[in-house]
């Protein structure tokens, strides 16, 4: 990997790592009796290991000029493997905490093992670790191809990927130590947030630099979605995480906002994290990989543009539907509800556009599990956006809010849409990236598909049942006009569903593990085949024609 960097890039890498090591040292010393110190040590160790890696490869020959004749895909390869590693870890933690709700004794009297500390490891691990790495990796791939331009340099993509994963590791280990801001989906503390801003700005600049080198005058629509993802997530992240640390030597900070402002800011963030992290970015992914895999252009390019602006605009107003009937002013609640319902239009335009793209390629969907992943993702996208608009209606929300229905809804989106489209995109790009005809085993892809689908359905049905039962039990009155059930009654009624949910999770996790194995074996056979057939093609600069799908 170091061999792919030019001399000046190697020097740049050393400088960055040196600065990082010094920062880590400062954190370790300044926060010596605080979790901040532990993270400082972690940062320093990472930076030192990185420095050694660069020094070891420092005198390797510079990459040949001919590298500019091909796209720079090594970062994408790294990002895909990282995404799969996070998927397995974070889904395993998720399933573990699902079991904890059925068997709460399994915490070994240890603080780190309790539900409250493990849950954000699951949510951040899946959203940022798995989803984020997949988005960054595929965005590098897509922006190069659609712009017909190579990444402008070899250092910044690595900075983005390593920096981002360092953020994820700091976040996850922090939760185990009790470091959290308690803002849902924005739990990492101030120092991790600042680091993410640095990484994110680099990512944004890298994207712009690549787009500015493009050959095509028109920017392909996938890039619009990816750009909205990068830009708006930056905006949300900075505003929602404004906070005052208690000192430079402490991990703890206090949010700048309080009470109702904080609630509105948090759910403006929270809902738009769903919109721009979990929707916009993955739509960008879908608009490239689905046509490519199906061998057909998008059904309607116009509709993809209209729904882009619709999503970018409407989502911003919808966050307040998380706060129906609370102390938030009612006009803000009504506004949120109205826009949430209107959101259905661009969302269904996107889902319909995706499914219509497959029209005429249904035989491929039948035979090709990879395309089927993408098709099911589009269906779940349509379903969960409908469900979301429905749940944003005030009277429906009165029943559904605070219950497991919300959890079911989120997982219909996260498992059915986000994870499925990601697996589809990863299975499509792995053979292209490692120059293979296909995955190591098509049967295992098939197995992964059915496990994922079964797991999602079990999970979602369990949570629909438990959520609606819960909501109804909480509001049922008996004949004498008093509440019929105690809270504990509802808790007892949840038990079988919590077990069913955890079993659904096992299915999904098994699928991800199989997927990881399959990808790993594809990479291994690729490197074996490569070392036998053409030992040094990259050195002499012969471009191997890419194996394309849609045969």
């Amino acid at each position, binding site marked *: 990997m170091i061999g792919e960097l030019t001399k000046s890039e190697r020097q740049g890498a050393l400088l960055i790592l040196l600065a990082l090591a010094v920062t880590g040292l400062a954190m370790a010393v300044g926060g010596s009796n605080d979790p901040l110190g532990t993270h400082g040590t972690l940062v320093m160790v990472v930076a030192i290991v990185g420095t050694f890696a660069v020094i070891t490869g420092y005198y390797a020959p510079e990459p040949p000029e001919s590298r500019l004749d091909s796209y720079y895909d090594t970062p994408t390869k790294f990002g895909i493997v990282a995404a799969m590693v996070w998927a397995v870890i974070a889904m395993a933690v998720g399933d573990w905490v699902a079991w904890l709700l059925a068997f709460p004794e399994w915490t070994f009297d240890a603080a780190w093992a309790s539900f409250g500390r493990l849950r954000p490891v699951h949510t951040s691990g899946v959203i940022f670790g798995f989803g984020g790495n997949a988005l960054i990796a595929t965005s590098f791939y897509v922006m190069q191809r659609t712009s017909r331009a190579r990444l402008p340099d070899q250092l910044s993509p690595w900075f983005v990927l390593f920096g981002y994963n360092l953020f994820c590791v700091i976040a996850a280990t922090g939760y185990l130590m009790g470091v959290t801001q308690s803002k849902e989906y924005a739990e990492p503390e101030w120092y991790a947030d600042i680091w993410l801003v640095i990484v994110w700005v680099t990512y944004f600049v890298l994207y712009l630099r690549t787009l500015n080198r493009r050959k095509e005058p028109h920017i392909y629509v996938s890039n619009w979605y990816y750009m909205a993802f990068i830009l708006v997530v930056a905006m949300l992240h900075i505003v929602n995480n404004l906070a005052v640390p208690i000192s430079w030597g402490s991990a703890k900070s*206090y949010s700048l906002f*309080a009470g109702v402002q904080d609630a509105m800011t948090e759910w403006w963030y929270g809902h738009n994290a769903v919109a721009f992290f979990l929707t916009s970015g993955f739509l960008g992914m879908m608009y490239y990989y689905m046509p490519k895999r199906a061998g057909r252009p998008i059904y309607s390019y116009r509709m993809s543009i209209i729904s882009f602006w619709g999503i970018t605009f409407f989502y911003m107003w919808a966050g307040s539907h998380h706060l129906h009937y609370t102390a938030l002013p009612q006009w803000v609640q009504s506004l949120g509800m109205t826009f949430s319902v209107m959101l259905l239009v661009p969302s269904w335009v996107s889902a319909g556009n995706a499914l219509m793209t497959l029209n005429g390629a249904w035989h491929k969907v039948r035979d090709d599990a990879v395309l089927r992943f993408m098709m099911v993702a589009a269906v779940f996208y349509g379903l969960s956006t409908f469900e979301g608009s429905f749940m944003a209606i005030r009277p429906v929300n009165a029943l559904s809010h605070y219950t497991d229905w919300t959890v079911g809804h989120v997982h219909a989106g996260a498992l059915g849409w986000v994870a499925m489209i990601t697996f589809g995109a990863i299975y499509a790009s792995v053979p292209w990236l490692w120059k293979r005809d296909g995955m190591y085993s098509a049967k295992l892809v098939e197995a992964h598909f059915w496990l994922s689908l079964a797991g999602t359905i079990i999970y979602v049905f369990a949570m629909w049942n438990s959520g609606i039962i819960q909501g109804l039990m909480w509001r049922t009155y008996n004949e004498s006009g008093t509440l019929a059930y105690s809270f504990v009654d509802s808790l007892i009624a949840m038990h079988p569903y919590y077990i069913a949910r955890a079993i659904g999770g096992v299915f999904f996790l098994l699928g991800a593990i199989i997927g990881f194995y399959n990808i790993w074996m594809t990479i291994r056979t690729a490197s074996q085949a490569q070392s036998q057939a053409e030992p040094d093609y990259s050195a002499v600069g012969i471009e191997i024609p890419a194996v394309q799908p849609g045969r």
Partner: protein
Amino acid sequence: MFGFHYRLERKTIGMVLGIIGVASIGGIVEIAPLFTIHQTVEAAPDMRVYTPLELAGRNIYIREGCYACHSQMIRTLRDEVERYGPYSLAVESKYDHPMLWGSKRTGPDLARLGEKYSDDWHVAHMINPRDVVPESVMPAYAFLARTELRTDDLGKHLKAQRAVGVPYTDAMIANAPADAYGQASPDSPAAEGVVERYGKATMVRAFDGKPNDLTEMDALVAYLQILGRLTDAAHKPVASAEKQP
């Protein structure tokens, strides 16, 4: 005009500005009025700030991720009011940096938990929830009772709170560690200062049942016992028309 638009789009920066513009206006329009909301919100002159011990307890509540399963926001719905108490007012969380309204009730709402149960009940419940509620799925937090509370940096905590707008006085900041100790040690000389600075209604008790050592259990129970009791505003008839459903 659309030649212009097309050129705009060819320049990547045009796209960038377009996205920022379209996306940010929604947030600004929606959130900006909330920063003047104090003009319409019910006043609560009796509202007091968290004591250092309660604040430390609140931070433990945050640290352990309690908000993932417990809300602190009673909605304006009949069954919620009957189950949990008067619905929550905006003013009640005006010193909450960050708010802990929550989004999920795997366990019950806690907005009006204060003084509903005894200290002993809370301690037993934290040590093993299933000793008092056999069907509970809450994790056990026995380690809180054997972990000493860190108080040396409480002054810094109060200072940071003041920086974001909570009216802590210089005396409160200077005496924060002593006040934390005093609130859980009723017979110690430090106890008087707590009442002096935070009001007569402040609960000064050995929350974990052991007056001589200050544990995280003390802090958490002190916090749970103050939930919904920083002001009486919610128990009075409310005038604000806009928040009635």
